[in-house]
């Protein structure tokens, strides 16, 4: 495969990016060998593997991996490939393997750190040179694994930025989600929503910080909620003796999508190095959810009044972690944009329980997930339609450029910065880093 010319794909500052970034399968294949190897990719949460021998399966880029709790209680991440002939050791999304993995094909077995345990009828390998083979070493155990307060990330490449250097200040969004639990602990609840999109994974990433689309693309969903709610509430207040109708939880979750440009502009966007950033610096669509009885008291008991208020007041909108994860601390959801092919992406949407907080939070989080992120979600339908029309529309030869110039300034990036809320700066930040990881170094 010929090396992709990155400079021809991303203009300076990523004010425009070439359509091949989304359409080209060779660009996609290079991403798998560079972007997804050189960066810290999220593989799971340690609450998914509470007991020794528990595992979950996922992918880093397109490569299957297993996250497993080893006999010494550490989290290990192994490539999900038998060293013999390549069979995946486990295929379930999650489960328990006990004390070892046993390959279903020829019964080679491995400890939960991947080291070899046994090969049946082993004398057939005597004097064959097997001792020097890669197969002999067992399952490949990834060295660069970081369990950050329960969130497990892996860097496939031996070389690269340390975890702390790579994420720098952006970890504050994960921190805020965890700190919202009075016990400082999160637990994954249930299976993820899985949603198949016929578009490039980066279109979904771009959309997470696209604040000029909700009031337009979601007029059909959020706008209809608004219309029906206002009609119902209006009717109600016309009766002089009746109390104002309490806003149902779902209305509270969906109405802010219809906020004005001015509101989104004011809320701000913050960027960090290496392609991370978030919308909702001073306000977000998650800022005005009703209080939940008993929660504030338990937070004050856990953190003291000042700190408790600080945690609760931080209601960031979407935090994008380069390359393919998004976290919403204020509503405890996590989305992964899993690349399958240049024009195929599976979105997984997970929810967390705030351990020690009232169930109302989990109810709200679960509701948000199904209303916004499900393949049955009308909000999801609005978005998918836009991505897939873009995937098709970009086949027009006349203009190969995707424009990302809104609020563009040549010197806008570097360290931690705050920008106007309707800026496309986080998209640019993503592609500036993308270009760097796509072209940096020669190791693969």
């Amino acid at each position, binding site marked *: 495969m010929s090396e992709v010319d990155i400079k021809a794909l991303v203009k300076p500052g990523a004010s425009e990016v070439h359509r091949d970034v989304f359409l080209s399968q060779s660009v996609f294949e290079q991403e798998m060998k560079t972007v997804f190897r050189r960066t810290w990719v999220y593989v799971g949460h340690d609450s998914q593997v509470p007991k020794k021998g528990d595992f979950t399966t996922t992918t880093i880029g397109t490569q299957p991996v297993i996250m497993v709790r080893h006999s010494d209680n550490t989290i290990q991440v192994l490539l999900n490939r038998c060293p013999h002939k390549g069979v995946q050791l486990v295929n379930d*999304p999650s489960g328990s393997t006990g004390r070892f993995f046993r390959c279903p094909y020829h019964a080679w077995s491995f400890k939960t750190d991947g080291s070899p345990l046994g090969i049946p009828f082993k004398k057939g390998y005597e004097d064959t040179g097997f001792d020097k083979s890669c197969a002999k070493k067992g399952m490949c155990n990834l060295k660069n694994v970081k369990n950050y307060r329960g969130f497990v990330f892996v860097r496939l490449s031996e070389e690269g930025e340390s975890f702390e250097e790579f994420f720098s200040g952006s970890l504050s969004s994960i921190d805020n989600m965890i700190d919202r639990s009075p016990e400082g602990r999160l637990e994954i*609840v*249930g*299976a*993820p*929503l*899985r*949603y*198949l999109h016929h578009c490039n994974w980066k279109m979904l990433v771009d959309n997470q910080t696209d604040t000029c689309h909700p009031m337009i*693309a979601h*007029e*059909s*969903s959020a*706008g*209809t*909620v608004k*219309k*029906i*709610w206002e009609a*119902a509430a209006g009717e109600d207040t016309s009766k002089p003796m009746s109390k104002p109708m309490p806003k*149902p939880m*779902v*209305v509270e979750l969906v109405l802010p999508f219809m906020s004005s440009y001015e509101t989104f502009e004011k809320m701000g966007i913050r960027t960090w190095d290496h392609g991370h950033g978030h919308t909702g610096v001073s306000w977000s669509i998650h800022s005005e959810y009703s209080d939940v009885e008993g929660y504030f008291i338990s937070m004050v008991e856990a953190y003291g009044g000042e700190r408790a208020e600080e945690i609760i007041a931080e209601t960031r909108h979407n935090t994008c972690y380069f390359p393919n994860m998004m976290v919403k601390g204020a509503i405890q959801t996590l989305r992964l944009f899993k690349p399958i092919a240049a024009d195929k992406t*599976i979105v997984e*949407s997970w*929810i967390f329980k705030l351990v020690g907080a009232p*169930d109302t939070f*989990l*109810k709200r989080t*679960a*509701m948000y*997930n*199904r*209303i916004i992120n*499900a*393949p*049955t979600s*009308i909000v*999801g*339908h*609005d978005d*998918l*339609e*836009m991505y897939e*029309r873009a995937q098709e529309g970009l086949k027009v030869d006349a203009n190969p450029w995707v424009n990302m110039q809104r609020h563009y300034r040549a010197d806008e990036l570097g360290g931690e910065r705050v920008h106007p809320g309707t800026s496309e700066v986080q998209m640019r930040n993503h592609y500036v880093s993308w270009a760097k990881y796509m072209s940096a170094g020669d190791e693969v």
Partner: protein
Amino acid sequence: MSISEQDVIDFIYAEANLLDEHKFEDWLELFADDGVYWMPLEFGQTEEHLTTSLMYEDKLLLTVRVERLKGERTFSQRPKSRCHHILQRPQILNPQILKKGKEIKTKTAFHYTESRLDEQFFLVGWAEHILRPTGDGLQIVRKQVNLINPESAHRNIQLFV
């Protein structure tokens, strides 16, 4: 008013027929004011609120969906989707209460097809209805749609199974 087994079966066939004929407003009328449409995310899921579902919709949300389908700016419905149900004969799970005017539980296997543009997909499973007899006939108190593959990576499911 007494409801016969045949009334119940006819009601469920007629419900699917309204959907297939895109008479969504008439379909909505079949739901009681406290009616719910539930599609769990996990096979065998019993928890309604404290875990993710594909759908858990009260009448307000169902009304939003039906309204949205008609909207000028509902771009994911330009062009519109179509759907089709093949039902197995509904089973009444508590036939002993038919004469007592209490809520009736049924189970109905389905093959559902939805299509739009060049895409067509199938969903297979069974629906569990709870039906309430009223002076005006039956109302849906709950329709639970159990897919055999709720956890799969689905494409847009835009109409009603």
